[in-house]
Every structure is written in C-alpha cells, then in structure tokens.
C-alpha cells in the first residue's frame, strides 16, 4: 500500500524570512528581534571583553602560551600546555566512566526497571543533578581522597606491580580522583537528558522490531539508541562542556600542580581551577594570562559543541535521507 510520506518539516532548514505587515505585526517582531538582538549583543560583548583583556599576555608570550610547558607566575613565564593536558585528562577519565554508565542507566530507567524503581531512580538522578559543585568537591576531598589513598590506589598499584600507570606515591588527590568526582557530577546530567530522548522513541518502532523477532537487547541497540542518538549526543556534549569548565570541585581534589600528569595518580591542574586559584593578587600581566586561559577554555568548549552539532546534523541528515527514500 503506497502512502505519501508525511510532510515533516525539517528543523535544520532555516525558516524563510517572513516579511511582516507593518500595520499589525511590527510590535510583535520588533520585540522578538530586539530581545534576541540584546542576547546576541551581551554574548558578543562578553566574548570580546574576555579576548581583549587577555591581549597583553598574548603580546608577552605569543603562541607559546598554548604550547609552552612551564606555567610560573613568579617568573612571568606562561605556557599552558600542561594545564590543557590536565584539563583533557580529567575530562576524558570522567567521560570514559560516564558515557557507558549514563546511557546504560537511562536505558534501564526507561525500558528495564519495574515501575516503582523507575520513579525512584528518576527522582534520585534529578536530586543528584541539583547538588552544587562545591559539595561534590568537599565530598571528594574529605571522603573519597582518604579512601583512594588508603585502599584504591594501593590496590591498583598492586595490579601493575607499582609501574605505569599506577605508580606511587599514593596521595589520594590527583587526576584520577578529579576524574571520578567529575564523573559523579556529569552522570546525572547524561542520565536525565538521555532518559528523555530515549523515552520519546516511538513505541511503534520498538514493538515493530520486537515483532520481527529481535531480542530486547537487539532492539535497544539497533533501534532505540540510534533513534535517540540526537538527544544522547547533545547530553554528552553538554556534560563534556561542564566537565571542561568545572572549577571548584576540581580545584579541591586535583592538587593544583601545573605539570604534565605522567601517571594516573599525578597531581595536575586544569584551566578553570588555575584561573580561580591564581586570580587573587595577580599583577595586570598575570590577570591577562589568566584571561588567555579563559580564551583557551572557551575555544575548547566551542570545539566540543561544534563536534556535537556535526554529529547531530549527520544523524538528522541520514534520517531525513532515509525518510525521503521510503
């Protein structure tokens, strides 16, 4: 039975600009354009002022701000590469744990758990998402760090006979602890947003796949996850951006030592925590250097967002292509 495909508007195509009738719609449109223009203006002013405030540092160190290996306020030498490495290391550790556990939890909440457990788990996730970052940092420092230092780190060290990547000394604080604290912080975000996008996958697709003989796990893997991919990618992108920019929680548990992390137990420093820590009493040149760190951080977040949007767009284009063909 041939059916004409539904004319579903593609949200990625921009709306045709409408000309408005001056008589009746100008108030409506001018308010809309005004408000969105104001928002764009605020964003632009913010970005430009941060970039301008960092210009003295770029003039002082040039591009070695990005690839230099020593960050020392005392000698006014600013090389942020170890700090960028620390930021990436903690974020990657957090994502390695958070993506599978987060998406798995979301799938479990929507499709696998019984009803009462579903509601309980959802409320728990939303509760965790509302906890302020500094509480996570304090918890990490007071509860996790001693446990890491006494139990977890020696156990991991025994696994590799005290060699890389689990070498002594066992200090508790370090990039592994910071990565774990970040994991606990971004997990609720991934679970909550993925849960919503998994829940809106149409029941017909789920039941249709079951009816052609797929097992539940095959349905989840081949039908539900791809259909929810847009939302999941968006959730992971937001979580990555939060992990990149997390300041206080990381500052308490990472050790704040701007050197390259050479093992998983090393102390290191991240962009945001360096800015927060070294801002007080900084001379104007040092403030500019910290502004440069902010610019680097914003650039990294923008790249992550761009990657996320590319992934979403690719999914949506493929889906559109599939829809048009059928």
């Amino acid at each position, binding site marked *: 039975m041939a059916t004409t495909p539904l004319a579903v508007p593609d949200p990625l195509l921009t709306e045709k600009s409408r000309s408005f009738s001056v008589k009746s719609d100008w108030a409506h449109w001018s308010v809309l354009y005004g408000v969105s223009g104001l928002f764009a203006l605020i964003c632009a002013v913010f970005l430009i002022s941060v970039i301008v405030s960092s210009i003295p540092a770029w003039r002082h160190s040039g591009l070695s701000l990005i690839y230099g290996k*020593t960050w*020392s*306020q*005392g000698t006014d030498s600013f090389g942020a590469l170890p700090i960028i490495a620390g930021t990436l290391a903690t974020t990657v550790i957090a994502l390695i744990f958070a993506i599978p556990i987060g998406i798995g939890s979301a799938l479990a909440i929507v499709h696998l758990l019984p009803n009462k457990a579903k509601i309980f788990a959802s409320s728990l996730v939303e509760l965790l998402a509302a906890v302020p970052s500094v509480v996570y940092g304090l918890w990490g420092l007071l509860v996790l760090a001693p446990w890491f230092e006494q139990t977890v780190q020696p156990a991991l060290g025994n696994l590799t006979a005290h060699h890389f990547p689990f070498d002594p*000394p066992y*200090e508790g604080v370090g990039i592994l602890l910071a990565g774990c604290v970040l994991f606990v912080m971004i997990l609720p975000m991934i679970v909550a947003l993925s849960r919503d996008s998994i829940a809106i996958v149409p029941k017909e697709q789920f039941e249709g796949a079951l009816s052609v003989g797929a097992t539940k796990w095959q349905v989840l893997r081949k039908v539900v996850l791809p259909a929810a991919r847009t939302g999941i990618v968006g959730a992971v992108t937001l979580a990555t951006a939060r992990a990149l920019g997390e300041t206080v929680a990381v500052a308490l548990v990472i050790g704040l030592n701007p*050197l390259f992390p050479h093992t998983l137990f090393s*102390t290191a420093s991240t962009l945001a925590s360096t800015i927060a820590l070294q801002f*007080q*009493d900084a001379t104007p040149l040092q403030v500019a250097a910290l502004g440069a760190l902010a610019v680097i951080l914003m650039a990294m977040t923008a790249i992550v967002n761009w990657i996320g949007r590319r992934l979403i767009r690719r999914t949506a284009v493929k889906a559109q292509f599939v829809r048009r063909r059928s």
Partner: protein
Amino acid sequence: MKMNRSVRLALTSTAVVFSALSLAALSALPGAGATTRSSDPYLAADTQLSTSATIGGAGSTFAAPLENAAQALYGSRNPNATINGYQAVGSGTGEADIIKKLVDWGGTDVPMLQKDIAKNESSGANYQLSDFLQIPIGLGGVAVPFNVPGLKVKTLVMNAALLANIYEGNVHNWNAAAIQDLNPHVKLPHTRIIVVARGDSSGTTYIFTNFLHAAAPKVWATLAAKTPLSLPTDGIAGNGNSGVAADIENTPNSIGYVEYSYLLLNPTLLKGVASILNKSGDAVLPSIAGISDAAAARPKISPLGFSIVYQWGAKAYPIAGYTWAVIWKNQTTNKAEATLLVKYLDWLSHSGAANGTTAGQDVAALQGYVPLPVNIQALARTTLLQATYNGKALLTTNAS
C-alpha cells in the same frame, strides 16, 4: 534614731570615702568610660571621635582575622566611628586599591617599594614612595608541619638548606641523608616526600621564601616573592592556609608551611612540626615567645628594611614577619575620616596595657597573632605622627 554630731560626721565621711573608692574601682575597669590612668594620652584619645566618620580598608588575607575582630571592638568603644568590613582581597589588590584611593588603607604583608607602585597600578606611575606611610600592624610566623605516619617523635630538626632542597625536589625520601644527618637518633621511613605549598599568592609564601633565600642563598637563589612556588612532581598546591593544612593532614608523608596561628586552629598538625635551626645554631619550635624574640632581635625596622627572618638570638624563631597598613601621607578629602583613620591605626598597632584598656594588639593575641613588641608599637606611633591634613599633623591627643 537621734544621732549626735560626731556620729553623723563619721557616717558621712565613711559614705564619702566609700563612694570615692567605688568610683575609682569602676573607672579602673578596662575601657569603661573615662579612664583615670592615662600614661598614653594618644591611646586614650584614639577611642574618642567627636564627628562621625566612615572608613574602610582592603588587602592582606593574613591580617583579615585581626582586622575583623579589632573593628568590632573599636566600633563598640567609639560610637561615632563606622569602619566598613575589611576586604581580604590580597596584598597586591590592597596596594592597588590604596594607590587608586578606593580605600582608606591598604593591608599588605610586604611593604610597597617604588617599583611596586607602577607595577600594581599603572596610573600610579607618577607617585613617589614618600607619598605613603607604612605602619606595622601585625606580627606572625610560619610553621613547617609534616605528616609522617609511624614516626616516633613529634619534631624533626631542619635547616633552610634542607627545606630549600626539599622544595626544589632534590631530596626525595624521608630517610635521605640530609634529613637523617640532622636527626641522627630518629628512625625515618623510606617513603617519598610529598611537598605541599600555597597555590595562591600569599604573604606566608613571601616570609617562607625570604627565610630560604636569607639563610641558604646558594640553594635557594630566587628572591622572596608572594607568587606560588613551582612544585616538584607530585607536589600539591593548597588554596589558602586552611587548604594547605587540610592537604597536610590528609596526605601521609607530606610536608608544608602554614601561618603559625593555623597550628593552633588545627591541633592535628601538632603531631609533627619541624624545629628550624636559627642563626645561633639552635633548633627552635614555633611559639609566641620565639617569634617575639625574632622581632626583638631587629628593633630598627622600616618599610625598606623589614625582614626579621633568620636573626641572632638563642630562642629566636627564624621564620617570622610583619604585616603592614599603607596610607597616604597627606590626607586631603575629609578631616573627620582622616582623623578616624590615624586614630584607628594607632589603636590597632598598640596594646592597651599602658592605659589599662584593651587595644588592637590585645585582640591580636586572642586571634593567634604575636603582639607587636613595644619598640615596634613606638615605630607605628612615630610613623602615624607624620600623617597630615592640609599640612597639619593629624594624630593628636585631642578627642576630636
């Protein structure tokens, strides 16, 4: 009852004498009303202000507990005075603020030099150091606690060269020869030393590096500075004195430096505190007496020569330093505010013992600082006497 004249006379004179005695007793209470003893007339006038005025200061975090406690007491003694809450924004910002005249006084752990004026505030390039007065208002020391589990003793002897080598990453283990030689009878474990330092700009770091450079210049060649130290691998940087204290408590085999008053606030740190070898060759634990002796060993300090680390003296603790308040020498805006400013700073830098009252340095002792020695209090007074308003001296014994 009818009394004859002599009995009435006896009763009346007893009553008079009794009330005179009780009045004298009441007025001898510290700070209660007008004092009858005033061996320090300036101090007596410090808490009397005839016109109401408001002032505020900002700067060093080291001075913050002292300022907060002192302002509360001063405000209760002097109803015409309003002192806005001290902003603990750091010494550098405090100096910048006073140069820009945003505050009435700036708190700094390291007195301003001429080059600091332009470095901190580019608009201040035309000002001279002689345009400012710098007054010592607090005295503190830097203790070196460590956390070595299983150590049978509560203190280890260390000297500046050893500490400098530890902080540069040249001494790796607790049972290194450098430490064992200074502590021959102590069994030290073969564990890695974890170095803890301040990650933010700090006057405590300044005093510590001042000591390392003064006592071991060949090992620690860099001059004293407030900026964070570069740590060796696996070192930990703490945020503030409390951050460093928490890091030392939580990390076994660690060593760090904190403001002396933090030892009193965190008694667990007392499990291991280093005794530092001073210039006379004695190993001294940090204490109020030791820091006082260090201050007394160099009575002639000035904003250009203010370092009291590594002094001669059998019991002098070698890691100590002052904190200062910076004001403009010639006040121009408002006479009442300028008068309040000099009176408050004079009160803050003195002890009230001469007048039987409580003044700033008595509050400091309660907050864990070391009270300023008497000769340094006198230096504060002579410096404040140079403050002028329209050419006339501000600090007077008048209640105005």
